[in-house]
């Protein structure tokens, strides 16, 4: 009987512990996060969009160009070494997607009709993180709409420019 009482007491105390201890649930780092401020006629020149960061891993490169079916300097170490690269580098097509993500997040439905230009300046190696951010450079009225032109930068964790781009779109 004493044992049963001790057991019930222990059970009750455990419940109490979990009632008062807040569970820490981590956020999914890959979950879709829309921009808080998107393209509108009110946005001023000089406005900086909220940045977002992407991490490139060898696994992601091997999904984008499925390995080992396809072995290139984007997903295969020996192939990269053959070209004097210390490790595989991210495909330009893959980090172009960061620009695409920026354009559709910022312009929303009005991404149709926009123009995007992206130039690759540096290599992205496994485990590198790239932060993408845009700045409104120009705002010009075109009839009822406003044309916003943004300079987009993509910097790695060392502050090096990986990619630069320009996006220009009409906002109604």
């Amino acid at each position, binding site marked *: 009987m004493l044992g049963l009482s001790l057991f019930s007491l222990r059970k009750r105390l455990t419940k109490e512990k979990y009632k008062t201890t807040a569970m820490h649930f981590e956020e999914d780092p890959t979950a879709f996060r829309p921009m808080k401020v998107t393209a509108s006629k009110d946005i001023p020149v000089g406005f900086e969009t909220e940045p977002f960061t992407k991490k490139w891993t060898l696994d*992601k*490169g091997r*999904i984008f160009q499925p390995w080992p*079916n396809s072995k290139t300097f984007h997903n295969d170490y020996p192939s990269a070494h053959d070209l004097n*690269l210390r490790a595989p580098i991210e495909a*330009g097509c893959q980090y172009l*997607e960061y620009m695409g993500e920026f354009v559709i997040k910022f312009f929303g439905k009005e991404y149709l009709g926009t123009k995007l230009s992206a130039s690759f300046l540096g290599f992205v190696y496994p485990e590198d993180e790239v932060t993408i951010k845009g700045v409104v450079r120009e705002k010009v009225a075109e009839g009822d709409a406003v044309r916003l032109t943004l300079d987009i930068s993509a910097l790695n964790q060392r502050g090096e420019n990986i990619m630069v781009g320009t996006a220009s779109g009409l906002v109604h």
Partner: protein
Amino acid sequence: MEKIFSYSSCREVIESHLQLMAQQKGTPERKLTMDNIKIGEEFEPLEFAFTEEDRDMYAWANDDYNPWYMEDSPWRGCIGTPTCLAMQTLMQTYGHYGVQQKGINPPGAVVHNKHEYEFINPIKVGNKLRMTGKPVDKYSRRGRDWIITEHLVVDEDGKEIVRMRVRNAWPIVVQPEEKTN
């Protein structure tokens, strides 16, 4: 939402990409050299579909699970990412010239250098698409050769989807501090 990824679906994607390359008539004999580039010469058209497997692969590889891609969009149905057809432009160009990215053709490999888009209509998942393209400029500068190509993608109804202008250069230049020891 639950993210469903299947590696076998990625194998399907690479198989479809290899088939796309095979549509081109490039051979190692038709090398990527400045002499072989004929400005205005049309590449063989590429016909393909942007499938659900392509959509999943792009989402997984880039951690981009926009509900417009995965669930539904203002255009009724899922769409592809705006920039998802970049790979196909390289397939069309590299396929035409028989590029082999092992430093064989051309020596030192080709690097994708600049990409321009004009987004016209959304890329609907499952729609059949057709890409045409041609070289529009070529030059040699700073020890490298450069080719600029233009591509147009239309859907099965002939509606324009996206226009692209692409710059590629060869060989790859590696900065001294990045070389292997």
